[in-house]
């Protein structure tokens, strides 16, 4: 290839890389900066914000709560989605119609609208549930499940779950044993890929957290907003908190990439499905 034709490509990738890395760099520098108001780089560097953060109980408990919440959302979604997809593939295809309809809602409907609806519904039928982390847990599990559903569905199609199930049944296993001992061990990467998306979504989720519980259950995003927007904002603490969040996201995304062996397997949701339908049955 001639050199000249590569210039626009290098330029394009350079601009995108700078654009993506710039805020991350600025935030990281902020977390080590003494003060930063005059020059392109901070006036001096210090570890004191990091030391302060690790004794800041409000920050630590927000992190702990958010982590626990995201983990619970993930486990709940796995427990609900995996059996449903298995049964839809081996026994009752009509399940797919219902779940696809439900999955379309959080896929395109803004979360603030869903939060609004949940607030309205439970304000009428169960006012005592409002403001509790349980409702937030259920709400986040509901908005995040499609990502796990599509990943698990694709993974089950890929391993040929129908034939596997028949073989396992002929050999005397029941449905429960087949699911947990034969199918689940083989769809591990699928569960992990979808699961990481669920975890990341719950970890950074803001609309439901703000509308359904607010300060009664302060998550990382609610605390961050307070640090960013209140009268005397605290950017140093916010920088440390955000760096920690980014590190968690990095770990999560590296795991996803490694599990997919460098292939982006986020093919337009629904496309996978359409493919499975046309060639499968």
């Amino acid at each position, binding site marked *: 290839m001639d050199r000249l034709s590569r210039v626009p*490509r290098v330029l394009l990738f350079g601009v*995108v*890389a700078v654009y*993506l890395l*710039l*805020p*991350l760099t*600025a*935030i990281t520098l902020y977390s080590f900066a003494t003060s*930063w108001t*005059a*020059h*392109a780089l901070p006036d001096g560097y210090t570890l004191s914000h990091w030391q302060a953060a690790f004794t800041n109980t409000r920050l630590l408990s927000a992190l702990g709560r958010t982590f626990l919440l995201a983990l619970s959302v993930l486990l709940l979604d796995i*427990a*609900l989605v995996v*059996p*449903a997809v*298995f049964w839809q593939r081996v*026994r009752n295809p009509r*399940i797919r119609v*219902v*779940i696809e309809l*439900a999955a379309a809602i959080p896929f*395109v*409907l*803004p979360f*603030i*609208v*869903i939060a*609004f*609806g*949940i607030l309205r*519904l439970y304000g009428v039928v169960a006012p005592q549930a409002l403001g509790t982390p349980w409702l937030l847990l*259920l709400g986040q599990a*509901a908005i995040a*499940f499609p990502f796990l559903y599509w990943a698990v569905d694709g993974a089950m199609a890929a391993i040929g779950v129908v034939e596997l199930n028949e073989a396992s049944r002929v050999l005397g296993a*029941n449905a*429960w044993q087949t699911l947990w001992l034969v199918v689940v061990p083989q769809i591990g990467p699928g569960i992990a890929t979808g699961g990481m998306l669920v975890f*990341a979504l719950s970890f*950074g989720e*803001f609309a439901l957290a*703000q*509308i359904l519980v607010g300060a009664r259950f302060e998550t990382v*995003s609610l605390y961050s*907003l307070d640090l*960013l927007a209140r009268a005397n904002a605290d950017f140093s603490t*916010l*920088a440390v908190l*955000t760096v920690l*969040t*980014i590190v968690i*996201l990095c770990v999560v*995304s590296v795991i996803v990439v490694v599990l997919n062996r460098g292939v*982006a*397997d986020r*093919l*337009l949701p*629904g496309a996978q499905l*359409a*493919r499975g339908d046309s060639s499968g049955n």
Partner: protein
Amino acid sequence: MASTRISRDAASVTGHADMAWPAPRVLPWLTSQLIDWLPALPLILLALALLIVPTVMVVAQSLRDGTGAWTAQVWAETLQRRGDQRAIVTSLGLGVVCATVSILVGAPVAWFLARATTLMRASWLSLLNVGANFSGIGLAFGFTASLGTYGMVTLLLQEAGVVFTPPSPASFLGLAIGYVYSNVPLFVLLTLPAMGVVQRDSMEAAAVLGASRLDFWRFIGLPVLAPFLAAGWLLIFTWSIGIYGLAYALAGNAATSQLRLMTLQIGVALNSAASSQERAAVMATLLLLIATVSLVAYRLAVRKAVQWID
């Protein structure tokens, strides 16, 4: 659990049940229905209780007045209000701008990445994944730290002697800069698998037959990729209109800000007791309508797109 022990063979299920309870014939039917649905039931109930019924509630509320009688009056009121009109126009405009920027930047990036070495692609995918997932309040702080009054870029340019006023985060441009940060990576991740559909050999075949590069793109490349790109555009458009956390953090309290968005109008109504929840319900229903239309268009685009796979 008893249900899972029963085999897939429906005849043996009903036969077994008949022996246990000989009297009514409804029972075997019920049992088999239950077995057909039971493992999916918890998920379906969750979706019903936290997605489907709440959505219906919002739509219903937009069509009722204060006393609970059915009316279209709130709709008429809302659509005539200046602030709400502005919110609708700004939200739609922001969606179009962000989706178009995403396609212009994201499509070439995805095209080249699909042809890059595995190591190169893997490292870019990691970066893009972080970008796609880094959103909300953290990203708003990233904006402040780079483009705020004392942001890194602002200070850098000013130190270099450039007269530079950073865009206000509560402006159309400010929001667009923030939105695009996760939109472009999302677009690349969504369309990257499709970019492999156009193979290098089809390019060479076209060249051998005398087609120029431009001919190739005009008659082969773009027609094949167009449905994928359209589907990606529609998703970014829909998701941008629905962004709330980032907009809330950037534009601040929309009640005091000049900038209005559909999602912010809802957020303000829900966060303050004084505002009208009925008008927020109209905004929410409008968002639902937009989402439904784009979903239908998206499904059509995907159906057209997958004919090239296989």
